[in-house]
């Protein structure tokens, strides 16, 4: 979208993007490079939200939440308490030999899934390694059957 100064037949140039974080009202200012005439395009909170639902940064939405990351739109848009945990930076625990042996006893088609469940649980609960004892604790906490 562009704005043209009808008198000068010039494309108006962007001057500033002013936004009110609290209300979601955004005003984008343009001026004619020839005659200096100024206009503002003002969006109400709903219009601002509609455009930002495209997942684009238009001012207050993304900037107010910090740096954009994966699934940013989903995380910003879901209401209430959600189940995801941002555990970026937490290292993956190491699997002990005994834990690997116990995992190997599970049917092959569930081993990947079970490994992921135990690894996630151990990481989030601060265990540096997955041992049979940690597996038992995780199993109790997750309500899993014997594995």
């Amino acid at each position, binding site marked *: 979208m562009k704005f043209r100064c009808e008198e000068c037949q010039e494309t108006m140039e*962007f001057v*500033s*993007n*002013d*936004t*009110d*974080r609290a209300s*979601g009202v955004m*005003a*984008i200012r343009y001026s004619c490079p020839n005659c200096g005439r100024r206009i503002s395009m003002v969006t*109400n*909170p*709903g*219009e*601002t*939200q*509609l*455009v930002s*639902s*495209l*997942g*684009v*940064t*238009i*001012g*207050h939405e993304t*900037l107010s939440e910090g740096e954009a*990351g*994966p*699934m*940013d*739109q*989903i*995380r*910003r*848009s*879901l*209401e*209430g*308490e*959600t*189940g*995801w*945990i*941002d*555990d*970026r930076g937490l290292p993956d625990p190491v699997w002990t030999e005994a834990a690997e042996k116990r995992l190997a006893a599970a049917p092959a*088609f*569930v081993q*990947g*899934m079970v*490994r*992921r*469940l135990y690894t*996630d649980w151990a990481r989030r609960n601060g265990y540096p390694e997955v041992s049979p004892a940690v597996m038992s604790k995780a199993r109790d906490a*997750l309500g899993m059957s014997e594995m």
Partner: protein
Amino acid sequence: MESLPPVDVLGQVVAQRAAVARRLASVRHVVAIASGKGGVGKSLLTANLAAALGTEAAKVGVLDADIHGPSAALMLGARGQRPQFGPEGARPAIGVGDVRVMSMDLFLKDDGTAVRWRHYGGLAEDSFVWRGTLEANVLREFLADTEWGELDYLLIDMPPGADRFETLLRLLPELRGAVMITTPSEASMLVVRRASVGAKQAGARLLGLVENMAETAESGRVRELADAVGIPILASVPFDPKLAQSTENGRPGVLINPETPAARAILELADRLRGMLA
């Protein structure tokens, strides 16, 4: 008021599409499993088909595009896992058979949490436009922001309704095809016929039709439907309550009881798709 940088909405949307293409460059085949009609067993079939495709050492992912009724994580035993966010994207859940799963279910706190979007600040009567855009964008994020890795097949479990097909095709012009699912009921066949015609008009390549919950012999009416739409019948999967129960417990029936007629039909469907997509 504070001053912020200029807005380049178009540039950002173009970059989003490029991000989808980059992410899916490591996926050999993307196939949508669709119907148009709810309750035809689409998710159950998707979970079993994913498990069946994985039995030949293929790497398989399932994207649950049913934002308000997600069930892929349940059927692939991937509940309880959460997406993990890293610099390269969100790690998907790992289901049985090592199927990678991304679903809205993984984002919700518990069974009693519904998908609810934050309050829309505009006119209530306009909110459906905002919601539609938002939900299309959720699909884009599932595609682009999930660390799918190298996959042989990515199955997209489509929600009921034909409208999401156009969204998917806009995001994925290289979509290899769609498998349409129907039951032998008149209502299902009517809806699926219209959804199939709509999908074709939108530019989708329909690989074929699967008759789910089939009676013992292939229904003549389903054959008429396939002929009318101009697509082959890929499989007739008989109704099997044990396969359904096992799958709903997170153990796709094709892995637990592969010798049942329903499991065999799904395994043959997987073989047929492998051949069609090779």
